[in-house]
């Protein structure tokens, strides 16, 4: 096949994958909505039961009460089944989208005759592929289905933006990018960026779950979709593992590979280019995260908040610095 054919195939696969990720997202959103409904229904029936019990003392209180309890169980079971089905469909669609996505990235690389991360469009499709890959590898092993909504929202959004706003036709690179450091530096950034994203998503869910757990302790209820999440403590551990994997890789990518390449290409290893500044800020925020986890009074909520801030800083470094600030890393091609 010619490069043009590959480019054409890639341009068909990426938007198709985007749409299917979006469908997976809808399915996972329904999963959460159904989960909420289970609790709402259960709570409604419970209220009814109380009413019946208080009003019908001297009539047939006992039988009315038991039929209400059956309703609760029935509603809960039916709701849970539908919720599980929505979750499975979401995961199935994610797999389908992933295969097309992978094909789109590979054909893009073949079309350009190099690694597919030479501009912002390519970095977006590759980094989001990294997010999807990390999720799909661990989804069965660590039962990460609860992350489905977050992952599909992020991947569909990134791919959608890439296709609509960042698209650049496949082509060769400017001379500054003619280096094998492109492979090392950018892939380290893409993989750690994928892990920052997963860590950030888990931290968001951690905050939600931790709040729900506190509510339960205060006598409240928790929806089925939240109940299905692992305990807040376990999610805190998951976030830490993902970020502990990402941090050394990010350190290597932006404080070793980046400076070495900068020394070759620009004649200095560190020059406070906006991209360098924000990479350092990202590094410092995640360093603070690791320290916060080892500090009494900072564990848990505050540490999770720092992880989310770190994720936003990373996103800004990628989107904001590329599009709003001019610097030496101007390879967006937009």
């Amino acid at each position, binding site marked *: 096949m010619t490069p043009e054919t590959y480019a054409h195939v890639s341009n068909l696969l990426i938007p198709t994958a985007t749409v299917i990720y979006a469908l997976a997202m809808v399915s996972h959103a329904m999963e959460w909505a159904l989960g909420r409904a289970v609790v709402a229904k259960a709570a409604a029936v419970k209220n009814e039961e109380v009413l019946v019990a208080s009003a019908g003392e001297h009539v047939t209180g006992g039988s009315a009460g038991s039929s209400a309890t059956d309703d609760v169980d029935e509603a809960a079971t039916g709701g849970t089944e539908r919720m599980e089905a929505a979750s499975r469909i979401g995961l199935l669609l994610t797999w389908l989208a992933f295969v097309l996505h992978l094909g789109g990235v590979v054909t893009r690389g073949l079309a350009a005759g190099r690694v597919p991360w030479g501009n912002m469009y390519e970095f977006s499709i590759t980094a989001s592929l990294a997010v999807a890959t990390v999720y799909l590898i661990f989804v069965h092993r660590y039962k990460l289905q609860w992350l489905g909504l977050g992952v599909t929202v992020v991947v569909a959004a990134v791919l959608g933006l890439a296709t609509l706003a960042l698209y*650049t*036709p496949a*082509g*060769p690179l*400017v*001379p*500054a990018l*003619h*280096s094998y450091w492109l492979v090392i530096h950018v892939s380290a950034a893409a993989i750690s960026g994928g892990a920052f994203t997963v860590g950030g998503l888990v931290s968001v869910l951690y905050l939600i779950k931790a709040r729900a757990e506190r509510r339960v302790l205060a006598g409240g209820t928790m929806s089925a979709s939240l109940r299905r999440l692992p305990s807040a403590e376990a999610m805190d*551990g998951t976030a*830490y*593992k993902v970020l*502990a994997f990402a*941090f*050394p890789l990010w*350190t*290597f990518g932006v*404080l*070793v590979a980046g*400076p*070495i*390449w900068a*020394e*070759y*290409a*620009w*004649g*200095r*290893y*560190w*020059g*406070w*280019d*906006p991209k360098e*500044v*924000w990479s*350092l*800020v990202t590094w*410092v*925020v995640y*360093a*603070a995260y*690791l*320290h*916060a986890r*080892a*500090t*009494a*009074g*900072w564990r848990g909520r505050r540490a999770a908040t720092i992880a989310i801030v770190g994720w936003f*800083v990373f996103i800004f470094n990628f989107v904001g*610095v590329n599009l709003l*600030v001019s*610097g030496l890393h101007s390879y967006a091609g937009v």
Partner: protein
Amino acid sequence: MTEVKDRITSPPEPPPALGLIGWLRWTWRQLTSMKTALMLLFLLALGAVPGSLIPQTPIDPIKVSDFLAAHPKLGPFYDKLGLFDVYKSAWFSAIYLLLFISLIGCVVPRLGVYLKAFRARPPKPPRNLDRLPGYQRFEVDEPGDMLAVATGELRKRRFRVEAYDGAVGAERGYLREAGNLLFHFSLILALVGVAWGSLFGYRGTVLVVVGNGFSNSLAQYDDFSPGRVFNADNLPPFTLTVKDFEAKFQTDGPQRGAAREFKAQLTYQETPDAPEKSYELQVNHPLKLDGSSVYLLGHGYAPRVTVRDGNGQVAFSGPAPFLPQDSNFSSFGVIKAPDARPSQLGFEGFFLPTAVIDQRGPVSVFPDDLNPALVMTAYYGRPQPETGKPQSVYQLDKSKLTQFEKNGDKLRFQLAPGQSVKLPNNAGSLTFDGYSRWVKLQVSHTPGTDLALAGILLAILGLMGSLFIHPRRTWVRVRSEDGRTVVEVAGLDRGPERGLGDELQAITKALRPDRSSTQETP
């Protein structure tokens, strides 16, 4: 940094009432606490941000002056805060110096603690093993040499083992703290390397027209920034000549005009007596010499012109480097002939490598030289005495010059190579002889780079140790209870690792003869 756990459990410290020494000690403790370190880390992150959003003098001085001109009120205020040179400002330096003092004050005492802990033997088993996070027990008829087997099994699992009366204690993961300390000390090492480079290094840029040479001395640089203690006598005495420059651009498709390849052919001599060597200089392929490196930073066009004055004398001849203004290399420049008589002459305008005339006037539509043209206007003025004031070679001081006019309009002319123009009133002429290319070279030396690199690599190694080594303590106790022998296996993690239960189960399995009963608490 410092574990604050112990400090947290004690009540908050009372305000110091111990005079200077007490106050200093209190300050030192606050500075080296983990909370302060966290705050300083956030301040460092926050403080680095303005430098990426506000133009910085060391990176782009022209943008800074544009900003000052555009914001007459805000600009000077920013300037007072050091916001145009954030990374050398007093407040930014204060943040990272405090952070480093905090870091050193934290890790140095920890080194002593660690050296002691490293030699420490695994601790005695606690009285109630069943209260630990991981616990298994089973009973056997024959105790045999259970503790010896346990010792062997634990050693196989890379535990350090200590025998106690009726029990063994085991611990592993001593290297976690070593990794942690290595990480922090290596960061200090890396920063020493960076500081060394900024003190003893230098960086200069020079624009060299193809065919011309450069010899490494201060006077030859267009721009030179030495480190604080750099000595100009230390410039290595190399010379080089730019023989040729070749640029390739995408000629078709949507990325038409994008740069594809730049190559400069150099010959150089490392010292005046050394043999001449040649090198193909490219982006990403600097020329590494002993003590200096030469980088290709940019390129452009230098039209070659001959200016004759009103008396017919040659007032200027040669290439004049023009600076590219856009991606198609529309290049702006000036030609000065202050010695022209009776009037001095000056020219200003554009060199267009691929000239096309559209509604905006003449523009370049491609970066390569497909249809080169020189589009200029001309000025004249009374000859001025030499003032010795330095003047930019890229700007014409028009304060004492008048623009030529022709038929009531400002004079403007467009020339192809080989063409010339006669100025009105027999003031002289300009001939566009042709054009050369120029390259912008950077010559720099940054000592300490290897130290910085080694520091950061060691830091990553230490980081991985501190993140992926998980300390674990395990005990095995054998005691008799109602004539039976009870074996207890228990453990606890001192990190976020999971799988304690699995390992205890495996140890139990190795110790336990078949058919004995086991109980487990998660």
